[in-house]
């Protein structure tokens, strides 16, 4: 659908693009982390691209994940980047869209923030930080957005225990449970 975007991207920034693919009609370009800012700036400012609409940013945790039909060696390991950060962009003038994916390792989960280019990414980057602990360098206000400051850890990471709660208040007038006591 937007193959011409990928072609233009490869022609202009071939060194920055790790890999391209088309998934269910969406064009995906894997971008090297260090080139993300340059590529995104170009996508926004180049008249034939004119990506003016930030659709979403989110993250995928690849822990325990293996593509269907691939051998077990394709599973996530310590050496492979654990997180995929996705930026979806759309151009309302040319009506095309593209998804940028950036692979991020567990040890050093950071990448440049695109809030400076599209201010609409501000809160979504904060949400991604809140849930996955991805640090967006250059973000103007990278704080937790949904959870409270006292919260420890990142709940949407796949290794966060699924029913672990971190209560702020509890009653102090409850008797010891008589069933549990015996």
């Amino acid at each position, binding site marked *: 659908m937007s193959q011409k975007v990928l072609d233009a991207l490869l022609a202009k920034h071939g060194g920055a693009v790790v890999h391209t693919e088309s998934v269910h009609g969406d064009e995906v370009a894997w971008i090297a982390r260090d080139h993300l800012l340059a590529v995104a700036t170009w996508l926004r400012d180049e008249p034939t691209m004119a990506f003016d609409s930030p659709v979403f940013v989110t993250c995928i945790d690849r822990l325990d994940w293996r593509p269907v039909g691939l051998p077990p060696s394709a599973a996530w390991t310590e050496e492979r980047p654990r997180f995929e950060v996705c930026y979806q962009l759309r151009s309302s003038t040319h009506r095309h869209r593209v998804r940028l994916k950036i692979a991020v390792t567990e040890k050093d989960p950071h990448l440049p923030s695109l809030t400076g280019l599209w201010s609409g990414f501000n809160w979504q980057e904060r949400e991604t930080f809140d849930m996955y602990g991805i640090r967006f360098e250059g973000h103007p206000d990278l704080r937790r957005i949904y959870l409270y400051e006292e919260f420890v850890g990142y709940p949407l990471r796949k290794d966060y225990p*699924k029913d672990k709660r971190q*209560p*702020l208040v*509890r009653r102090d*007038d409850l008797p010891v449970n008589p069933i549990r006591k015996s």
Partner: protein
Amino acid sequence: MGVELSTTRLEDAAKWAKQSLLERGVNWGRKFSLFTYPFVTACCGMEFMSAAAPKYDLARFGAEFPRFSPRQSDLLMIVGTITEKQGPALKRVYDQMTEPKWVIAFGVCASTGGFYQNYHAMPGADQVIPVDVYIPGCPPRPEQVLDALILLQKRIAEGRGHSQLRDKREQLAVAASDE
């Protein structure tokens, strides 16, 4: 005193929460003049609106008037999912209400956390404040809400609400220390 002070069961409470004639009269009046504070946080709110609206008409039972200040209300309706982040706010609202006060947990989310068994949802509002009546259902039918209200009225008349028993306990303790 040898009684389980924390329980509100009728057979336990009847041993020590005996009401004088005056208290019985006062509680009879209280049960028909409940002022609700709707602590509405989620989808159950729609069902609460319908139960409070003329078709099902909570007002028939004297729970006429939703007050939007906890200072003016004595029935806290917890309507919807309570998150851990909301806990301090809920406790604060409860503490601000005037005594005696009653609490209804409306829907499974407010009663037990419902199907949210994860990092953000509190497993029932009774983790933070004492609840008098729990209404199951996701969301509950209006009939269940009316049933819960009648149940609560019965409890108020018997002097078995959590805050009523707390009050009674304090009175007994003062009386015992005077002797």
